[in-house]
């Protein structure tokens, strides 16, 4: 075996997933030359057919989360959905005097959006999670002020997999009349979501975290009671005026197909992934001085985040070219700064830096997990032996 010929073991499903073959099959009819290539906003036969495909997908996405089709707004991904939800809700309400509650471990796109709003006069409270990464409903409720317009809390953390208690928090916020936005990019299909029971107002979704195509996402916008948003992309008034721009039916149909598969297979798959995740953790136990990041009791099935004492992060990553894993989130790994999420949990810089996020997925196998664990053990041992800090 030479590595050039063999792709690395892919354990980065939380960064992005491959397209499921069945999703591709659903997309192709909209991409072939004699396919449904019209603009779904066009008023003619081909346009109507493209529109019908879009609406079918809307129903598929809605079904997975217990929503109505009319509550699904297409976007270019969860980044845009998060921007639209947070800025849109705040702008609609008027920015002055508004207060937002969120957490320090949100995805960068939520934090960056909040920081932008701060420059426009919004006050933001960034809650510090406990050592296991959990922000409790009680913390959120305690942080509310009479001006609080919005709470934004992710369902599943992308770096450490912690699952927040959205079901418990949502009714508390509804009672108090505070709008609740949830970033569910990592949650859809991995934890059960039923918005007909859980009074979340706005929820962000992404296709490419769930075996659908990259570049398409959705925002759930509740109709009863109606969550109102100022559009962030202005134009022809598509998507109920909330998001303009020509719809991309092949992408949308891909997201619909991906979510339809999740609805059928998600629960069984989550069990299988949790077992693989646990197998990986077990496989690493021959190494001393490991730290698991996140809450093992409230963990999404696909994520295992581990800090390795006594090794430096960049060398650790460089030693594992045959494993596609992440350190921190995809977005922050280019800069190689220690993960802000791990630091929010209280990890020191060195441990935060020497951590790996393994995330398993639909195509992960036990053999891959075992090979990955062996490889990590071998390389951590090697680096510890070289290390000037390890005795």
């Amino acid at each position, binding site marked *: *075996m*030479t*590595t*050039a010929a*063999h792709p*690395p073991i892919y354990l980065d499903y939380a960064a992005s997933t491959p397209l499921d073959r069945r999703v591709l099959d659903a997309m192709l009819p909209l991409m072939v030359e004699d396919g449904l290539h019209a603009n779904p906003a066009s008023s003619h036969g081909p346009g109507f057919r493209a529109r019908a495909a879009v609406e079918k997908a809307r129903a598929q996405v809605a079904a997975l989360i217990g929503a109505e089709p009319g509550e699904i707004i297409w976007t270019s991904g969860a980044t845009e959905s998060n921007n639209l939800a947070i800025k849109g809700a705040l702008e609609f309400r008027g920015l002055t005097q508004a207060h937002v509650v969120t957490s320090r471990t949100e995805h960068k796109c939520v934090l960056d959006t909040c920081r932008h709003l701060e420059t426009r006069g919004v006050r933001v409270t960034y809650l510090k999670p406990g050592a296991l990464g959990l922000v409790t409903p009680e913390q959120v409720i305690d942080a509310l002020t009479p001006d609080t317009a919005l709470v934004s809390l992710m369902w599943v953390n992308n770096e450490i997999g912690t699952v927040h208690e959205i079901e418990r928090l949502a009714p508390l916020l509804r009672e108090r009349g505070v709008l609740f936005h949830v970033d569910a990019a990592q949650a859809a299909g991995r934890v059960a979501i039923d918005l007909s029971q859980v009074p979340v107002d706005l929820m962000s979704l992404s296709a490419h975290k769930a075996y659908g195509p990259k570049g398409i996402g959705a925002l759930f916008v509740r109709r009863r009671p109606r969550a109102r948003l100022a559009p962030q992309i202005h134009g022809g008034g598509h998507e109920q005026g909330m998001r303009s721009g020509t719809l991309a039916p092949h992408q949308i149909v891909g997201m619909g197909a991906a979510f339809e598969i999740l609805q059928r297979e998600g629960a069984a798959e989550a069990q299988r992934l949790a077992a693989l995740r646990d197998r990986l953790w077990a496989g690493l136990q021959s190494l001393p001085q490991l730290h698991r990041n996140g809450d093992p009791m409230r963990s999404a099935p696909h994520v295992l985040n581990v800090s390795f004492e*006594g*090794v*430096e*992060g*960049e*060398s650790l*990553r*460089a*030693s594992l*070219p*045959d494993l596609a894993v992440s350190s921190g989130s995809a977005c922050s790994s280019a800069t190689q700064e220690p993960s802000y999420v791990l630091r929010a949990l209280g990890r020191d*810089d*060195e441990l935060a*830096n020497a951590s790996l996020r393994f995330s398993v997925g639909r195509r992960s196998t036990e053999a891959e997990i075992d*090979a990955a664990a*062996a*490889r990590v053990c*071998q*390389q951590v041992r*090697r680096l510890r*032996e*070289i*290390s*000037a*800090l*390890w*005795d």
Partner: protein
Amino acid sequence: MNESMGLPTHDADHDRDDASEAALLNAFGYPEPVWQRFVDAPRAGRFDASTPGVVSGRAGTPAARSVLSLQMQFDEHGRVVDARFRAYGCPSSIAVGAWIAEWSLGRSTDDMTGLSASTLRRELEIPEDRAHCALMGEDALRDLLNRYREKLT
């Protein structure tokens, strides 16, 4: 941990199983002189405490995520007969340690006094944004040479 540590050395006697051969893939595009020394880590480790004539030097801090520790064994003429390094840090820091240990063999303290960070950067093709690794090499060697001189006096 003993002197040899079973670590891969530059005559590449490490076992050729799938996984370790895979480690040869320089996926992040490190400069070749850095990459080879990072992978092989020749002379990584330290001398047994009983080894005679050993002088140590050290630079860097854990907080900066770079620590380099050098050991050289001198003969009665003040020449290096053997050397070891240990490094906690990025691949460039490890390569700097390996390079200095290798380079020191047979040299006297006078020979080594001139070694500058810029030489290290040139020899290892270390880019600007990793210049601090070369500086750490220079510092660790200077620390070692200072201790050698202290020992003499």
